[in-house]
């Protein structure tokens, strides 16, 4: 039972930061940016490169996050701002194109094989009845820390209030003296940092490969949409729900239903489950499970 909860926790952590990044930035850029998951991959690969160049992992990770944040702003200013003038659907198709180009870059620079961080291997520790590695716990800690820092930023600082204001009502924000474009790009930078951190967390717990981004694309979207796009903390709740559904689907013994002792759904149905939840969410409550101010879906 405790193992179940720890599995859910680990899966939540896989998705949470990228989903939060997606949710935060959506209310400012007004289109779903598919390339965000590639920022996660970029973060992990950059951190790997920097560690290989001799930097200790925490420094490499931090630097990688900042660089990816910068990349996100660069892409926003050169590509997405222009595409948005033609509408959010065109911008989304454009983000798809960027995703493909980034995949090509990763393929050429890093190759198709999986890589790992250069980590000391630690024994598995037992927390209550569950088995966790130190690296998994580190990822959990990183995620929790990042979410707390983000919440403090959003709700306790003037910058955060300006971000929330601009997300709620861009025209009024300008009328209040807020430079909406600057605030938007600040949030774009943050979303890149969060995604990169999420990617590093993913890589810490296992391997990283170039397919990682596309693998989490739909579950991350599902989490962000469930939580309500624009509701950063809601995205964390959305990640919990998706993680729970996925873990349930593969852990529930359906045997008794069909008269056999053991029958489990194959692992790939776990992700199919999150897609199903996503479609159901879009049909039934497109604004997310919590009362939310982003009006259009």
């Amino acid at each position, binding site marked *: 039972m405790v193992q179940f909860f720890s599995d859910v926790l680990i899966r939540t952590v896989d998705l949470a930061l990228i989903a939060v990044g997606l949710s935060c930035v959506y209310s400012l850029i007004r289109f*779903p940016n598919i390339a965000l998951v590639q920022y996660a991959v970029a973060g992990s690969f950059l951190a790997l490169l920097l560690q290989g160049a001799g930097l200790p992992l925490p420094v490499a990770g931090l630097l990688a996050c900042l660089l990816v944040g910068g990349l996100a702003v660069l892409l926003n200013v050169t590509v997405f701002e222009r595409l948005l003038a*033609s509408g959010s659907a065109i911008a989304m198709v*454009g983000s798809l194109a960027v995703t*493909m*180009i980034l995949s090509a870059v990763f*393929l050429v620079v890093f190759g198709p094989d999986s890589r790992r961080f250069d980590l000391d291997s630690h024994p598995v520790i037992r927390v209550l009845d569950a088995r966790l590695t130190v690296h998994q716990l580190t990822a959990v800690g990183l995620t929790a820390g990042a979410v707390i820092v983000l919440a403090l930023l959003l709700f306790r600082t003037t910058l955060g209030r300006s971000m929330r204001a601009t997300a709620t009502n861009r025209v009024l924000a300008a009328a209040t003296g807020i430079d909406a474009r600057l605030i938007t790009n600040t949030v774009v930078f943050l979303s890149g940092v969060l995604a990169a951190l999420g990617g590093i967390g993913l890589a810490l717990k296992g391997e990283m490969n170039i397919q990682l981004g596309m693998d989490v694309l739909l579950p991350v979207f599902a989490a962000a*949409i469930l939580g309500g796009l624009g509701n950063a903390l809601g995205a964390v709740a959305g990640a919990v729900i998706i993680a729970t559904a996925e873990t349930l689907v593969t852990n529930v013994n359906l045997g008794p239903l069909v008269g056999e002792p053991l029958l489990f759904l*194959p692992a790939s149905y776990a992700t199919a489950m999150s897609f199903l939840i996503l479609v159901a969410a879009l049909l039934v409550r497109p604004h997310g499970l919590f009362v939310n101010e982003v009006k259009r879906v």
Partner: protein
Amino acid sequence: MFEFLIHVSTMACLFGLLALSLNLQVGFAGLVNFGHIALFGCGTYGAAIAFANQWGPVAGLLLGGAAAALLALAFARLGRNLGADYWGIATLSIAEILRTFATNEQWLTGGAQGIHGLPMLFGSLPAPWGPLATLGLCAVLLAVCWALCQRLVNGRYGLALKLLREEPQLASSLGYDLAALRRTPLVISGLIAAVAGFLFAHYTTFVGPDQLYSAETFLIWSMLIVGGLGNNLGAVAGAFLMQFLLAYVPFVKDALGLPSEFVAAMRLTLVGGGLLAFLLWRTQGLIPERIGGRHA
């Protein structure tokens, strides 16, 4: 080389059919479908399941068509409350669910290995007549579908579709039933995609879930954007251009002595780069849409 050219041309015709069908949705009705490959998959798996159960190819065609029509209706129903970009995500999700289903349900679809050994079109004819006949059939069907799409789009129906795309609120205030307007291009589009799938299955003699990755839908998108959205001729032109470009990538790799990762990377760059370049700098594509259609 001759056989290779025939092969690429046949594939180009099939992708031309897929591009035409996606264009009906995107270019004319403004429906941003990221799960289009699933409609194609209805055609391929219809043929494969009919073959596996020995129901005969005609049954396969009918099965594929029916499945595609049903799926298209499901897509249309989704579109009632969703904005264009969200509908894209929803359709992508559904296509992925179907692909996962096809990968796992061995009893029905052959699982990850798929189904082999389908009878080849014109298989009894000696080479090169067999492949040529196939190419001929595909080309004829492409022409027929093009004509069909042109008629659909240039008549009153086409104008209604354009209105749906540009001013949906105006369309509904003029009394157009938006839901029906959305259903029809989707269903027709699905049927065309299913026919393409059927032909593909009986040409390559193999059907598997790897043919249903979302990357294939994105490839068709690039064909539309490069060729020109909302333009049937552009869709076909884009299909031919992209298909030929992609087919020659391995030759470029060999000529320049590059490693094999290059092939996949080059394909991604061509598709993604082409998409982006045309979106940023030449949004009307290679063959621009004629505003006002043929009435002007």
